[in-house]
């Protein structure tokens, strides 16, 4: 299980290095366990926003958004993931501290039950040098949007 995860992560990482601009565009999700793997998020002293659009989802199930975050800086980062809610919450990540060049998987879950029509949700990843105040925090927003049919 762990080796599969490392393999998938490495593939995603390599893919993302080659073409960071391509967003995952997938349709027809029907199962509660469906997972959308987003591009790797590289932290490089920036405040960025990226969007993944065009998802078409069948109503009812839970949808998982998953991505890898990589610290490209030469110092450790304190990371915090959050969501704007509206059905989207953090499912899990394990490390708050990300050492240089270290990877971490962040998983969100979107509950579509009771929702229909267009959706646009935002995942927020904040980071700051380890040990510094939250006032030195930088924020990366990752938007996912589409339609619940």
């Amino acid at each position, binding site marked *: 299980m762990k080796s599969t995860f490392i393999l998938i992560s490495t593939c995603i990482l390599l893919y993302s290095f080659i073409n960071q601009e391509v967003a995952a565009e997938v349709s027809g999700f029907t199962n509660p366990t469906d997972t959308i793997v987003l591009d790797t998020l590289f932290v490089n002293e920036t405040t960025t926003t990226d969007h993944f659009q065009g998802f078409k989802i069948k109503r009812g199930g839970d949808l998982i958004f998953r991505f890898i975050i990589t610290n490209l800086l030469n110092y450790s980062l304190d990371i915090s993931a959050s*969501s*704007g809610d509206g059905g989207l919450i953090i499912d899990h990540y394990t490390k708050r501290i990300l050492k240089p060049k270290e990877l971490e998987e962040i998983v969100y879950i979107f509950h579509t039950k009771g929702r229909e029509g267009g959706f646009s949700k935002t995942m927020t990843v904040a980071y700051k040098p380890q040990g510094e105040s939250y006032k030195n*925090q930088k924020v990366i927003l990752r938007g996912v949007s589409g339609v619940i049919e």
Partner: protein
Amino acid sequence: MQEPNIITKVILTQPQSFIEANLPRLCYLVTGVNPIDNKSVSVSLVDNGGFQFTKLSDENSFNYSNAGIKDKNDFLKKLDEYFNKTNQAITDAFANQKIKTQFFPRAYMKPISASPNYNSKGAVKAVVSWTAVYKIEIPAYENPITRRTEYANLINGGIEITLSAGGKILSFKYNLLPVSSQKSAALYKVVADESAVPQLVYLLNKNTNTVAPFYLSATETAYIPASRESIPPDEEPGEAFKNPMGFDKDRIVVWLMNPDVKKRKLKIFDFFAPRKKDSDNNLPAGAKLIRLEPASETDENTPCVYWWEGSYHQKDFPERSLGKNNNIITELSGQVLQNDVEHLLSRISSYEKKQDEYDKVIKSIRDFSKKLLTKEQIDNGLIKLNSSLQLNKNDKPATILTWQKVLSDVYNPKVNETTNFFDEVLILPLSYDWFMEDKNSITPTLSTYYEETWQGDPLLNRFVGDSGEVVLDENDLIKVKSELLNLRSFVLKTAAKNSPEAAWLQNLTKESLNRIKLIVFVHSATWHYRTEKYAESAALENSFGVFKLSPVLNLLIHEFTGHSNFLFFATGTKPDGTPSDRHIDVKDTEATWNKVSKSGLGSLKQNEDFIDHLYQSHRALGSIALAVIISKISNL
């Protein structure tokens, strides 16, 4: 007919239909402002009876008094004159209807607070307005033991009036029905006079020790709850006792009632018998407990953990003594409140000395924790809190305006030298219900517009759901702002053009929206929440003694913290120990509850995030809720 289990007192009132039918006229007589087609004011009916008036801009203010307000006594004196004059004016205006109503029932009105409001910006603290809250207190009966007159208070509302420093009426909340006369002073007597409907009766619920208003049904023998606090006394259950096993999200946080009360038949309850102040465990009624899993369905006792006098304890309590409502008022309610406040203080210490603005929140809680409120102060505090911060579903914009003001007064972190958090926040008082109001009409204009414009657009379709959400992304914000300006024009072509929402929209400008960096949407179901513990993954159980804010206001506090400017925007831990944000899912509570039920509180290893799961309340968000409550009840 005699009802020995409850104390009743008949007060005749004018029906809400009287206010409804005469709202513009009453508003003019009371505030001096003609509300018809007046976009500078918002006037709406209050759900429980009465109406409210809010000034949205400074134009055309009614200058009640030309002379400025000098001090508190001067303020109350001016209000007294005002009540006199207005009562006379209303009597004259409705002379042909032969209404005996004293619109302001001065004999029963008692001021519980009168205080200045200061400007929240700038270096100089200047008084900008004065607010007074009056409760309605009715002599109920003579207590044969003490020979004192006992009073019943209308606890779900009162009269709140705010005058500018120059004497202009800025807001007015008449949160009751006009009292027309007192029918009888007799104890234990319900007089069914059906000539004036509805009648309001105040019932003492012996299970919760609260007095709350009910309407008397004109057609059947029944009490109709007239407020959220109006809980009819329970009948003795006929079924065999069964102690529920397993996790039930609505029975995790419970409150101790007098353990013997529910075992006794209500109909033979002797109100004047000496009351047992403490339970077997020396805990007063109203104490907050965490109900754990009982040993078996037949066990009449249930293990509970609780915080009392500085530490956690675990003991068994009779299952029948565990109530689902914190509205339990006794002589010891002050002690219960103080305990809850001290508990929270002990839990938020890790946030201290990290942000100046939040340190002020902690200081206000610490200062308040040293006060022991009397029962009367608790009663008055409830009235003031309910009068000031009650959700009025008929006027969401006015409610939101009030809430945002009180929130920014208690906690408004600096974004930079010139900007504070709430300068950049827009809470939408719009709702799915409002858009859908004309859905069944012949020309469903607004609802059709909503379906075509909002519902299909991923960036705008944010009103449907069971919680709320925030918009932070720059592109999303541009879209929402642009659509709000479109809606501002469009709404004037619809049947909703005179709604408070339409008036609110007219006050939006491109310039005012430019500074907004966070827009909060409240979902359709959330506006109707009353006692819900969660709004999806937002925990809402932020109660302190008998005090608790509206679930919607608790949800808003949760939503604001989705912004990274907040100290505690992303602090939390999942039950498995991995990081989380401020969300607490019902599954988190269930996992933590299972752990504590099996292995005791020690299994949580004093991790405050796990305590949050168990108490169904994020401690930092709870502290903001408490600071709001304190701001309303500390000066009684």
